[in-house]
C-alpha cells in the first residue's frame, strides 16, 4: 500500500481549473519529485494535500485514510509536514520560536529534544537562535523552514521549491540534506524547478504540464529522456 495516494484530483481557484485530474503515488521511504514549468500546478497540488486548499473532486489517501476534508491544522499530527513555497517563516519571531511553532502539537519535552536534533543538523540555526527569522539570509531561511517542518517529526515531508533563489553551493547543501533525511527514514515529496537536481536525487518523478501529469517514471530514466531534457533540462 502506498503511503500517499492521489486519485483524479481536481482543484480550482474560482473558475480557474489549476489541477486537472492528477493521480500519483508516493511509497514509504521514497523521494518522489513533481517537476514542471511555472504555473503547472505543483504548489496547488502540495497545498491541497496539506489541507490549505479544498479539492473540487478526487481523493487523497494517506496511510489508507482519506485526507479530504481534514483541516490543515490536523495534518501535522497525521505525520505530514509541508515546507511551503517562499518558505513563509515567521519573520518577527526568533529562530527558536519558529522551531517551537513547528512542534506546536507536541509536548515541550519532545519539542526540546527534537530542537536539539535540528540544531545538530543545522548548526547555523543554533548560532542564530535568538535572531528574528526575517533577518536571516535566504539560505538560512530555507534551513529554518526545513528545520521547522522537521520539528513535528513528520513521516512525509513535502518540500516546495527548497532551492529557490539560492546560490549553487547552497542548493547542493540543501539537496544533500534532503537525501540524508530520506536515508534516515523520512519519505519525501519534492517539488522543484531545478529539474536536473531533483531528478538526480529522486527515486521516481512525475512531470506536470498545465495541471496534468504528462509523464512519469523512474527518475533516472526521465533524467535521460530526450523530451524531458529538451523541456526542463535546458537541452
Amino acid at each position, binding site marked *: 500500500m502506498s503511503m500517499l495516494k492521489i486519485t483524479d484530483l481536481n482543484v480550482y481557484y474560482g473558475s480557474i481549473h489549476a489541477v486537472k485530474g492528477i493521480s500519483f503515488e508516493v511509497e514509504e521511504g521514497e523521494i518522489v519529485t513533481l517537476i514542471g514549468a511555472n504555473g503547472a500546478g505543483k504548489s496547488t497540488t502540495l497545498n491541497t494535500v496539506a489541507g490549505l486548499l479544498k479539492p473540487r473532486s478526487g481523493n487523497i489517501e494517506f496511510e489508507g485514510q482519506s485526507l479530504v476534508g481534514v483541516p490543515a491544522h490536523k495534518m501535522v499530527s497525521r505525520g505530514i509536514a509541508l515546507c511551503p513555497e517562499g518558505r513563509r*517563516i515567521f519573520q518577527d519571531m526568533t529562530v527558536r520560536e519558529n522551531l517551537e511553532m513547528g512542534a506546536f502539537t507536541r509536548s515541550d519535552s519532545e519539542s526540546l529534544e527534537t530542537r536539539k536534533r535540528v540544531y545538530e543538523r543545522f548548526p547555523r540555526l543554533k548560532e542564530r537562535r535568538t535572531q528574528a527569522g526575517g533577518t536571516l539570509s535566504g539560505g538560512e531561511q530555507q534551513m529554518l523552514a526545513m528545520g521547522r517542518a522537521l520539528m513535528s517529526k513528520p513521516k512525509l515531508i513535502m518540500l516546495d521549491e527548497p532551492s529557490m533563489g539560492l546560490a549553487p553551493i547552497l542548493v547542493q547543501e540543501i539537496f544533500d540534506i534532503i537525501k540524508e533525511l530520506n536515508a534516515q527514514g523520512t519519505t519525501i515529496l519534492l517539488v522543484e524547478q531545478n529539474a536536473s537536481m531533483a531528478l538526480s536525487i529522486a527515486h521516481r518523478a512525475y512531470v506536470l504540464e498545465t495541471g496534468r501529469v504528462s509523464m512519469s517514471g523512474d527518475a533516472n530514466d526521465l533524467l535521460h529522456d530526450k523530451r524531458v531534457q529538451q523541456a526542463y533540462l535546458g537541452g
Partner: protein
Amino acid sequence: MGFLTNLINGISLGSVYAIIALGYTMVYGIAKMLNFAHGDVIMVGGYLCFISMTNLGLPPLVGVLLAVVGCTCLGIVVERLAYKPLRGAPSLAVLITAIGVSYFLQNSALLIWGANPKAFTSVIPLPSVSLFDGQLVISSVTIATVLVAIAVMVGLTLFTSRTKMGKAMRACSEDKGAAQLMGINVNSTISMVFAIGSGLAAIAGVLLCSAYPTLMPTTGSMPGIKAFTAAVLGGIGSIPGAALGGVLLGIIEIFAKAYLGTQFADAIVFAVLIVVLLIRPAGLLGKEIHEKV
C-alpha cells in the same frame, strides 16, 4: 501642583485607553479587522458590574469578575456569529458588520437597562491618598487604574513572549496559512484573542465607570473611539504601541481640557493623531508596511 495633578489624571485616563486599545490592536493584529463594537463591550462590562453590585448586592470584586466573564463570553459569541462567517470577505463588509454589532449592543442595553444614566459606585472603596499637606490628592481609583494597566501590560507581554498560545497568536497574526501548517487551529486562536480583548474591555469599563460614575448605553462609544485613536497613534497591531498611544492620548486630553477648555480637548486629541500619521503613517511604534511587488 496643578501640573502634577493633571499629569497623574492624564496617565490614569490614558491607562484606561491603553487597556481598551490593547483589545483593538490584538484583534486587528490577528483578524485584520477594526472591531468597532469593542467600545460597547466596555459599556456591557460596566452594566454587568453595576447589576452585580447594586441589584444583587455582591461585593465589588465579584462584580468585576462577573463583568470580565460576561464580556469574555460576549466577545467569543460576537466573533463566532458576526465576524467568523465573514472571514475572507472584503474589509468594508466586515467594518459595516462591526458597526452593526456596535448599534446592536447599544440598543440592546437601551432595551434592557433604559436610557437613564445609572450612578456607578466605585469598585475601589478606599479613601484618596493625600500628599504634600493635602495639596495633591490622588483618588484610589486613579492609582488602581494605573496599577491594573501595568499588570495587564506585563501579563500580555509575558503571555505573547513566553506561552505557547501567545506565540501561536503571534504566528497567526503574521501568516495564517503557515500557522495552520504548524498545527495551530487558527479559528480557536482568533476566538481566544477576542476573549482576551473583551475581558480587558470589561476591566476598562469598570475602571472608567469608577472614575466617571455615569453609566448609560452610549458610555462606551467615546472611550472606544479614543482608544482606537490611541491604537492607531501607537501603531495598530503593536502591543507596546497601544500602551504608549493610550497613555499619551490620556495625558494630551487632560492637559488640553485643563489649559484650553473642554470643548477643545477632543479636537486636539484627533489633531495630534493626524499630525503623527502625517509624519509616521504606521504610527509611533508600528512596523512600516512594505508593499509586496
